[in-house]
């Protein structure tokens, strides 16, 4: 992968993705062998929004590569609280680290940040924009369980604000994947994502119900519908119930169906599904470590080779 930063899944080619996934598989096979790889390197974790999995898996990934991490802590305890701009914060933190990971509530924040820093920067979620490292681990999980070519996927839930959906849909256009999008009308894909899918000539279909498409799916990617997206509680309850799955629903699915979820889930996947062979979401979350190790390794490698030129 010849990228300085990872901001959006739209910047990734099939070759880029496969290079990361191949290296992640290599790492997964013998994680200890990578322990000394980036000894002495420091990764800066800049999370302007709460995060559990992404933050911890980046932290673990860097440490398993032999490096260290520094963390700006919560926004409440940082200089952001004093009114510092993101641009200034990133310029300062750049001096402390060899690479940066940024999560921020505003769309386009990571893209802007790259204009102020020279070290590799990874977008770990920018508002309702993109979350490309989640996509890489999603693709890794898909490749392990269902493959990435001649596959039918259903992506369900909050497609409008779901950044994991936006990134995944874009990345899947590199592969022979039929994409079905299932959501209430008010949470259907935003114009910008539709535009990109159209430009890439992706095979896309939209539905308001899972029922009609479930039997065709090889992969079902479920996302959370958030209460705060609806003006009132009743409307939320009415809608959310239609986008939940349990073992009864799965009886109509292919036996080989892979069910994924970026987590956290609330009640969109019933706990009873966890015990079925369909459930891959915990495996998916664990894949965050080897995939982020692979990505960090490649970005740090690129940065080092550029310095040497």
């Amino acid at each position, binding site marked *: 992968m010849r990228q300085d930063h990872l901001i*959006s899944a739209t910047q990734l080619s099939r070759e880029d993705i496969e290079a990361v996934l191949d290296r992640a598989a290599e790492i997964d096979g013998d994680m200890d062998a990578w322990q000394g790889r980036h000894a002495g390197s420091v990764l800066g974790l800049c999370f302007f929004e709460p995060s559990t999995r992404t933050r911890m898996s980046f932290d673990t990934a860097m440490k398993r590569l032999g490096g260290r991490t520094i963390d700006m802590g919560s926004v409440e305890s940082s200089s952001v609280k004093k009114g510092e*701009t*993101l*641009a200034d914060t990133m310029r300062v933190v750049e001096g402390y680290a060899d690479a940066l990971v940024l999560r*921020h*509530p*505003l*769309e*386009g*924040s990571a*893209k*802007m940040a790259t*204009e102020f820093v020279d070290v590799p920067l990874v977008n770990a979620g*920018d*508002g*309702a*924009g993109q979350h490309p490292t989640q996509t890489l681990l999603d693709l890794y999980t898909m490749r392990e369980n269902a493959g990435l070519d001649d596959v039918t996927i259903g992506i369900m839930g909050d497609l409008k604000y779901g950044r994991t959906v936006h990134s995944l849909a874009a990345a899947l256009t590199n592969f022979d994947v039929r994409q079905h999008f299932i959501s209430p009308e008010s949470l259907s894909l935003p*114009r*910008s994502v539709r*535009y990109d899918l159209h430009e890439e000539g992706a095979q896309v279909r939209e539905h308001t119900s899972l029922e009609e498409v479930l039997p065709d799916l090889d992969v079902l990617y479920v996302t959370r519908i958030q209460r705060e997206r609806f003006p009132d509680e009743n409307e939320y309850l009415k809608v959310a119930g239609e986008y939940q799955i349990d073992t009864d629903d799965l009886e109509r699915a292919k036996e080989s169906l892979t069910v994924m979820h970026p987590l956290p889930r609330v009640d969109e996947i019933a706990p009873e599904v966890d015990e079925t062979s369909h459930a891959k979401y915990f495996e998916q979350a664990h894949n965050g470590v080897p995939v982020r190790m692979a990505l960090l390794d490649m970005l740090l490698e690129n940065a080092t080779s550029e310095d040497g030129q």
Partner: protein
Amino acid sequence: MSDADRELRVSKIRNGTVIDHLEAGQALNVLALLGIDGSGGEGVSVGMNVPSDKLAKKDIVKVEDRELSQSEVDVLSVISPEATINIIRDYEVVEKKRIERPESVDDVLACPNRNCITNADEPVQTRFIVLEDGLRCGYCGEIVREDEVATHLNVS
């Protein structure tokens, strides 16, 4: 009424730029796009809904003592691609500029996505990539259709 009478509605200028064949209703947007509000002291004449052969009705803007550059002219393509630009010196047309679609327009439009980083208090200008039938925010990716552009002009 003869053509000459029509012309007189907006008088000839000695030196400056005539922006003609604007889509009717776009004259004030053009002034906003170019940052012309009269505060620079330049003479500005505006004709709106003037009968036109080429368009049923058109707007026309004349700016005295200012010659628009190619990059300024290109920005107009996002709201009125049919416009023609004549540079006037001593009452004569000395140059006709053609509008070309630029690759991007910078610091002209505000991003309609309220959650875009360019609407936060950060040291960045807006940048829109020009698409075939609209514009796209270079930061958050939001798409603005051609017919929506005028409502998002960054008028200060």
